[in-house]
């Protein structure tokens, strides 16, 4: 049954992929890519990878689609038609694919319980059997992610951080100068007359450009609904953050969800208002703080006499230590991810709203 569902989903994926190749309208392709991620997330659930499914849904079809749309709104929507097909590319892809298929021929079959990966006493078996007593959290993925392979996660957090500051440096978020008030964004190369958006009675200031781009700003219904929804989104984010030990979730997913609350607000109420709530400099500090929290935990474990990220030394009892370690580390990840994701949104959005 499971296998059938997975295979059906897989076929869906193939259809979507063909669509992505064929479509010349980039907007549609992006939406399809989001759908692709969502279907994949569904398949991941079927294949018991709930954490991955959660992340893929939040990131692949959420954040990354928003980023694509942000970029697209700034550039062209359609790719230019090309008469000739790239036989070279086709050849390369087919060759690589052929090689991969050749490699799968003696791989363990789908769902095999006796494959090398499933039976390795050092990794999979150990995690399944020992993590409860060694680390504690029922969610084994969290144990492995934050403790056994916490160092990988440290690197991963830095990747997120790197992306954040890379986009910041490439798109060059205009900084709010001290003493400068409401018109937060000093116009750069383009000069725009700022007008008070009369239809938004909350007095939000938006450029005509922005109004054109975000017509929803005028939708009172959306505004009300959003205001109602956002607390729940943020609450859910906190839940995912702190409940990651027990169910699917963790710092990364929580960060994304938390950020999506702000992004939603930004989409509906405009960038300026969002920035007033969450100024870019605060984001910068958040980004750094999360990472520093992670590093700090690592340093602390070393100061206390353990190896890097050896949480056992954090408390008298090893399990307690692990608990504290995972808690802080996940919190660090969550904070950094929140900061980076909102910052990414700001950068893409501010680029065009000026």
């Amino acid at each position, binding site marked *: 049954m*499971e*296998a059938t569902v997975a*295979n059906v989903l897989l076929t869906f*994926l*193939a259809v979507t*992929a063909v669509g*992505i*190749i064929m479509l010349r309208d980039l907007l549609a392709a992006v939406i399809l*890519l989001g759908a*692709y*991620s969502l279907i*994949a997330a569904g*398949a*991941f659930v079927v*294949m*018991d*990878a709930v*954490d*991955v499914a959660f*992340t*893929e849904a939040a*990131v692949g079809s959420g954040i*990354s689609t928003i*980023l*694509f749309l*942000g970029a697209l709104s*700034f*550039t*062209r929507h359609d*790719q230019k038609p*090309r008469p000739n097909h*790239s036989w070279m*590319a*086709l050849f390369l*892809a087919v060759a690589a*694919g052929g090689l991969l*298929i050749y490699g*799968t*021929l003696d*791989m363990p*079959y*789908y769902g095999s*319980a006796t*494959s090398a990966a*499933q039976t390795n006493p050092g990794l999979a078996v150990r995690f*399944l059997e020992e*993590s*409860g007593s060694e680390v504690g959290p*029922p*969610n084994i993925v969290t144990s492995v*992610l934050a403790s056994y392979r916490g160092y*990988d996660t440290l690197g*991963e957090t830095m990747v*997120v951080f*790197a992306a954040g500051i*890379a*986009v910041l440096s490439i798109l060059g978020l205009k900084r709010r100068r001290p003493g400068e008030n409401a018109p937060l964004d000093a116009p750069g190369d383009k000069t725009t007359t700022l007008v008070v958006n009369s239809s938004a009675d909350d007095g939000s200031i938006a450029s005509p450009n922005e109004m054109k781009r975000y017509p929803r700003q005028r939708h009172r219904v959306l505004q009300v609904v959003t205001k109602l929804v956002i607390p729940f989104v943020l609450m859910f984010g906190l839940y995912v953050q702190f409940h990651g030990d027990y169910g*699917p979730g963790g710092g990364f997913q929580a960060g994304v969800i938390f950020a999506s609350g702000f992004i939603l607000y930004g989409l509906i109420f405009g960038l300026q208002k969002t920035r007033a709530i969450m100024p870019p400099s605060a984001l910068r500090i958040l980004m750094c703080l999360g990472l520093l929290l992670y590093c700090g935990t690592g340093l602390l474990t070393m100061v206390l006499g353990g190896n890097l990220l050896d949480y056992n030394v954090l408390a008298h009892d090893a399990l307690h230590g692990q608990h504290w370690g995972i808690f802080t580390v996940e919190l660090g990840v969550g904070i950094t991810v929140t900061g980076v994701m909102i910052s*990414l949104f700001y950068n*893409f959005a501010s680029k065009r709203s000026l």
Partner: protein
Amino acid sequence: MEKIAGLYSYWIVVVLMMAGLYIMIARYNLTKKIIGLGLFQTSIFYLYITMGKVAGGTAPILIDGEQPVYSNPVPHVLILTAIVVGVATSAVALALIVRIYEEYGTVEEDEIKAIEAAEPEA
């Protein structure tokens, strides 16, 4: 037959991966390339997750007092990391695309090349 059933999912995933790769190499539009990259990477995630699946298994979250069959958590952990890496790369690439469009007025690779060829050396 058993082989086909057992490996079917791998093969489709491989095809999907190569679709992504093909888009990355063959398409001139830079945004489309990144869409291809997304497709490629998502398919790799799929490959990993497929490896971790155990038939009749359940999500690797310990349940008190029971001993069910769990799917392998290791690929899940790896892919969590890889997803993050993927979105980070895409974000940077998209930022670059925006800037390239600002500078060149186009995001088609061959047009950019033509513009660059006309520029003086360094």
